[in-house]
């Protein structure tokens, strides 16, 4: 059971990190290039994260402090790694200052914090 919970947490982290990277990269692109379709992609990815969150107890209240801190740190590490990888390859306009704010926002929305 504990193993399942850990796996669910890993999946939750991976999907949510992808949503956040997507969100930040979207802002690095000229707005006019983005059709509704791309926003739908973020929504889909977020919905997947939500499905995993809804399987991690406690469902209707924030996770224990240890878990939420672990998740927050892991997501931050993943998001920064993906974004820095792009920056190192010459991708411009990526705003790293958005990372903390986005993570905080998403985790609150999903009742992790």
């Amino acid at each position, binding site marked *: 059971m504990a193993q399942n919970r850990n796996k669910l947490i890993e*999946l939750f982290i*991976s999907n949510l990190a992808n949503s956040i990277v997507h969100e930040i990269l979207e802002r690095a692109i000229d707005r006019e290039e983005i059709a509704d379709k791309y926003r*739908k992609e973020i929504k889909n990815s977020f919905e997947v994260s939500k499905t995993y969150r809804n399987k991690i107890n406690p469902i209707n209240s924030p996770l224990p402090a240890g878990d939420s801190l672990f998740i927050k740190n892991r997501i931050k590490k993943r998001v920064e790694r993906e974004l820095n990888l792009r920056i190192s390859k*010459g*991708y411009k306009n990526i705003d790293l200052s958005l990372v903390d704010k986005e993570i905080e926002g998403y985790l609150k929305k999903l009742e992790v914090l």
Partner: protein
Amino acid sequence: MDQVYVPKKRTGFNIGDYVIIKPLKEESGKDLKKLKKLYFYGVSDLEKIKLEIIEKIRGVIEQSIEFENFIITGSFLERGFDFRDLDILIISNEKVNGNKIKKTITEKIGINPDIIVLNIKTLIKGLSTDPLYQMMLSKYVSKKRLIFNIKTKINYKILDLHLLKSKALIDGFDFLNGSEKYQLTRNMIAISLFLENKKISKVSVDRKIKELFKTEIKDIKDNLINKKEFLKEYKKIYKETFEKIMKGVKRENGSKQK
């Protein structure tokens, strides 16, 4: 004896059914509208019940809004009934409430479609910059025939966003079902073909998947693939595709600064 030709893909009656032949001019305007044929592209065969669903969808759209064309696509057009998605693209220059149409279709027909409302300019832009649009429109049913002269224009940052989606397979191989694995692989391969300026269609993407992964599509969908071998190839293609995109992003940045 005179002959009457009827479309092979039709709603309402099967081979061997008795029918009445009536002149169109005697029909009411509403019925005439119903009889207008649909345009099929890349769809060789479709079950009768699906044609009836398409007719009903057309009815809902025509009653609800002013539009130029509608396009039905997605796995709904594949054989069988285990389809994942039914995408409806509504082409209109007017402001259209897609959510309202989605709700009506769900209530009246019991199917939950994805609706994208866009004008023709946006559709053409999508087709020239987005491999998924190209793949989506390699098979469709529409009210009117679509005629385009598309020049592929690569937007590397948008491709990067698309490719990011396929990363989920590397992280979650053990948790994804076969159909999800196939979708993510297809997404990655479509992007890789697009970067090589190759034609994107479901058939061409599937052929490439079979060639690269040395496996049948059915085995991927049935989740019967060898994890080690599949992931090894997948990671390699992902990395190569990502590197190509990043080179393109760098070039795009450079040309903007000049």
